[in-house]
């Protein structure tokens, strides 16, 4: 981050009443950050259309929340809205985009695809099951596709998170006020394992059987 924000705590803290000052500066910085998000124009599939409706259509109009300056270059953007499915071929590019973005950067995963693979969770051999396997995600917005209203709720949540989240004392460390609790007796690893079992089970196709079955259709297909 910037030279000023890096050095500011060191200068301010020793002063009398310094820590109060740091908190005040934090608030000011977070407030301005939360109200001037610059999203990257990035959309891979269906959800991108609803994002367009959310940003462009006069009924919804993202400009009300100070986030309408969509930038096509990642270097000028600080909000990455993952709108759409991420497949294996796109994953490294997504990572590159994320790394090129200016600090501090925020990520919203909109749509079931970006959360867990959505409709392509089972039986698809290419989709990444959730964008958070590649980059850290701050806010998830469920839906297939999420309505513009849902997207705005996510955006407001992100703004709330930014306002309460970071301090220049520990740059890069974020407090997340909105956390969903897991049911008792269950850990994240349990869920991961269960999902992996399911997925490997899904992918089992008996190739010999399938090929034998296919032989007679290929003959039929020839004169089609």
């Amino acid at each position, binding site marked *: 981050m910037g030279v000023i924000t890096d050095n500011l705590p060191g200068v301010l803290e020793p002063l009398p009443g310094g820590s109060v000052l740091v908190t005040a500066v934090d608030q000011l910085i977070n407030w301005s950050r939360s109200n001037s998000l610059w999203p990257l124009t990035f*959309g891979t599939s269906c959800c991108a*259309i609803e994002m367009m*409706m959310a940003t462009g259509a006069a009924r919804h109009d993202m400009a009300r929340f100070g986030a309408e300056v969509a930038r096509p270059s990642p270097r000028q953007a600080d909000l990455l809205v993952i709108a*759409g499915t991420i497949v294996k071929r796109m994953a490294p*590019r997504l990572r590159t985009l994320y790394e090129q973005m200016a600090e501090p950067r925020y990520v919203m995963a909109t749509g079931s695809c970006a959360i867990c693979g959505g409709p392509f969770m089972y039986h698809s051999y290419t*989709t990444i099951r959730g964008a958070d396997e590649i980059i850290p995600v701050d806010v998830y917005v469920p839906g297939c596709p999420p309505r513009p209203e849902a997207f705005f709720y996510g955006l407001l949540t992100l703004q709330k998170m930014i306002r309460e989240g970071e301090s220049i004392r520990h740059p890069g460390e974020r407090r997340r006020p909105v956390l969903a609790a897991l049911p008792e007796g269950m850990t994240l690893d349990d869920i991961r394992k269960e999902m992996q079992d399911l997925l490997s089970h899904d992918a089992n196709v008996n190739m010999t059987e399938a090929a034998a079955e296919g032989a007679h259709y290929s003959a039929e297909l020839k004169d089609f």
Partner: protein
Amino acid sequence: MSVHVSTLQARISGESTASSPLSTEEYFVNMGPQHPSTHGVLRLVLRLDGETVREVVPVLGYIHRGIEKMGEHGNYRQFVHLVDRMDYLSALANNWAVTMVVEKAAKMETNDRIQAIRTLVCELQRIQSHQLWWGVFGMDLGAFTPFFYGLRDREQICDIFEKTIGARLTMNYIQPGGVMYDIHPDFVKDVKAFLTYFKSKMPEYDALMTENVIIQERLRGIGKLSAERAIALGATGPVLRASGVAHDLRKSEPYGLYSQVDFDVPVGTTGDCWDRYWVRMEEMRQSVRIVEQLIDNIPEGKTFLVKPAAKIKVPAGVHYSHVETARGVLGVLLVSNGKDAPYRIHCRTPNFNNLWCIGEMATGGRIGDLVATLSSIDIVVPDIDR
């Protein structure tokens, strides 16, 4: 027939084809996969000579989700919702393509009410799709206002769909054996209100873009595609019609209630960007005409003729049928082994062939015209990759 295949590497090391003595050294530019004008994650590799485009090579696969393979794992009803996600701007037409092939193969009955509802919602969605294209096309040319106007009017159709179907984008509405729900009691009233509203807005669209000298000068004569090449490349939809070929499945192989309504198929003459623009604008008017003729005459009857949970068995064999979506011909080839799940499904999607015309259109032109040309094809990338 021999197919000439050349790898990207061969092209890079190949001889310069520039004939002018002023030609400079050729170089490559990579456009995409993250680029605001590729409407998704399409990558184009451009071989340039100064400002002149020598070759455009699309590189695909950045949103390949394996939809065709996934279709083999579920039954026929479960495949319908997956095709929504291919060309999401014509989700209903995609539903219809799958429905049609299943109904034809399994000899399922429908009635006039079902067909009328299907035709109506598909035409409404064609208008909706062209509205979005119009807005985005304007934005790609550097005009921001059309984007607001197009999306403002698109919202109105979204509202109509939401009342009846419950979704704004991914519909999953047209099913083998009928449509998921009957139309909302307000449907007729809402559609009529929309038609009145939209007909008063079309002159606004024209004043803003169609009659605009800057737009006309910008689009005329660039990105030309001859009728012969369009047919050879397998282009369909507005791209083909703009080149002067009056091919529209709604006319040539009428399905639904298209044979009972009166509408024209707009065709262009030269196949340049302007023609493609004009054809789509005209298609919106024709769709309005179709909806007007049908909206007062929706017959009575049931809207679902099989039990929703009933298993559909398709006789063994190869089945095919196709529909005209907002972008061209979507064909679904189904190989069945007599069970309740397809053995193999293949979709012949319009955008795939239309995209390949970009090489023909852009080669020899200026790089400044490339974005206008690409946008005039109106591609949806997940439909290309599937």
